[in-house]
């Protein structure tokens, strides 16, 4: 007899009833609204390369075949849909919260992820501004722990918020001792 798993009616029952068990709420703060345009711009680069490539192909080949144009049109529609839907969806999802005890982030759009790490386990706090982020006046904050699996990253914060968060976290992490493993 194996005995590795036993059905647990309680766990699945609680889920079916719903509401009785406490639920995780989303983090409290949204990122900057400028992030929508940042994400749009970032994604549009990839699409632009794809579209320009196809246009060149269309012009260079000019054998009058209709399906070149059709592929181009489909790509354009997909790009437009992605550029309209993705950044807004992302903005709805991306959130963060830092308490004196823990850091909590939520990110993604189609697939979503929440990450929670105790402040006492923070190893490094980084902030980075890429060229595109500078254009939009944005910044991001990355918090790493001793685990290779769990960096918490907040994209699209406005500069002041990022700086304030960075300062707070640095002070909080310094107050903790131990090697955080």
């Amino acid at each position, binding site marked *: 007899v194996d005995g*590795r798993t*036993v059905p647990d009616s309680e766990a699945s029952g609680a889920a079916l009833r719903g509401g009785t*068990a406490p*639920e*995780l709420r989303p983090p409290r703060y949204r990122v900057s609204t400028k992030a929508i345009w940042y994400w749009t711009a970032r994604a549009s680069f990839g699409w632009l390369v794809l579209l320009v490539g196809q246009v060149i192909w269309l012009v260079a080949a000019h054998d009058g075949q209709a399906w070149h144009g059709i592929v181009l049109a489909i790509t354009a529609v997909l790009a437009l849909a992605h550029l309209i839907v993705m950044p807004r969806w992302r903005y709805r999802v991306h959130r963060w919260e830092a308490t004196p005890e823990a850091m909590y982030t939520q990110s993604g759009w189609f697939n979503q992820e929440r990450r929670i*790490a105790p402040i006492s386990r923070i190893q490094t706090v980084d902030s980075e501004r890429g060229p595109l982020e500078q254009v939009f006046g944005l910044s991001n904050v990355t918090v790493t*722990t*001793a*685990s290779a*699996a769990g960096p918490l990253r907040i994209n699209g914060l406005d500069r002041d918020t990022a700086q304030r968060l960075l300062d707070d976290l640095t002070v909080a992490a310094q107050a903790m001792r131990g090697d955080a493993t």
Partner: protein
Amino acid sequence: MTATPSPAGTAEPAGSTPPDSAGWRRLNPRMLLLYPVQELPRALPALFGLLIAGSSRGNGQAWSFVGVAIVVGLGVMRWLTTSYRITPDQVQVRRGLLRRQVLTVPRDRVRTVDVTAHVLHRLLGLARVNVGTGQSDRERESGIRLDGLSAEQADGLREELLHRRARPGRPATDRTAAAPAGAATATVPAPAAVVERELARLDPAWIRFGPFTLSGLVTLGLLAGFLSQLVDEAHLDPSRFGLVRTVVDQLAAAGLWLAILEVVAAAVLVVAVASTFGYVLAFWGFRLVRHSGGTLQVTRGLVTMRATTIEERRLRGVEVSEPLLLRAVGGARCIAIATGLRVGRGAERGGTMLLPSAPRAEAQRVAAAVLGRREPVIVPLRAHGPVARRRRYTRALPICALLAAAAAALWWWAGLPAWVVVASLALPPLGVLAAADRYRNLGHEVLDRDLVSAWGSLVRRRNVLARDGIIGWNLRQSFFQRRAGVVTLTATTAAGRQSYRVQDVTAAEAVRVAGEALPGLLTPFLAEPAGERPVRKAPIRGER
């Protein structure tokens, strides 16, 4: 611990050079015999050039003497320029002739001390010591390697570096079975009396699991590659060999099915034999010992002897894994989850192996002994519920159907042999079996001190992760998981695989598990009590 009886295993470590005024010591002078052999591969191109130069000028002997002199000279240089010292605070190695280099590792950063002795080392009573700092990503750069201490010096060094923190004054009562062949630990001024207790020892009967470890597949692949290259490079015609011709003729005469059967049987036999051989080679003389100084020590190897030490304060759990074949014959292995040790690849699993393929009960016993508690290893786990079961099927079957469809399409348009299509029809039933097995193996539980999670079919694993080793949580939901209202909860940790997943549990169960395993962490982020609706809809929750 190396079991090599040193030719001169006397009180004072044989042939060790006395430290100079600043405490710097040379490596063992017997390494002077070994270095030329070790340098040979590096010097090979140069030697080759010399040989060609020599033979073209007609005085080959003189040139080959020069070659030998260079190789020996390199060895002597390496010995002369390398020295090490151990101060109360750090371990230092000085090396290099033109580019002097001093590697320093603070002693409180030392995580592992591994002692390896290859054949030649063992003949000379020597051993190589690797001092690791647990920076697993850069193990090559961050550690210190002392190639060439006498076996007893190596053991002494390990004692000193790892058991220095041992409390003095504890009586050495049951010093079990002095290490085989009496490795001279007595010569070492041990900082504290070391009590060791054997947790496991290789039972020769376990070799029966050897054929099922499949480590021989690698050997077979290497062999096949080597042979094909030989045939290729040397322009050999295999059919010129009598044996090959006999085999080929016999296969041709036997008919297709019989020939396939024969080839498969031969391959299975070779893999089984090679795997068994590899098992014996790697794990002969295996012992797992617990030192009172707070370490676990694994000794193993028939030809190359390895002694790996794991600090128990770095231990964050154990993993019992059962690859499919091994599981079919009731075998399992046990692996340590420790910080500063990366889970390796292949059967050896780097330095983290606690028990090679052995009976499952034995693996569980060792896991329990290492943890010091039996419950997490044997406790029945919570099933993940109907959604997790459904998702196992909805993930396996489309892939099988897709592959079958692709085979059919290729058969229709690209002339793929029809039997491939027929064979691909076996995929969906296999997919169903795999999905059923995957669900059956899925489970989790939170105990007093551990988070236990089990998963996998090709390799079934049970991970026991100490709750205080958990650093944080990731809760991931794909689009489809969100619709189904389930979450994959990942415990992040600094040890082992860095993350351990509890797949496809309901959102409520994920919160319960996370909350029980790390009490308090989630509390500020839980939704307000009923009646007070959250202002916004929670985007991550399944709300449709």
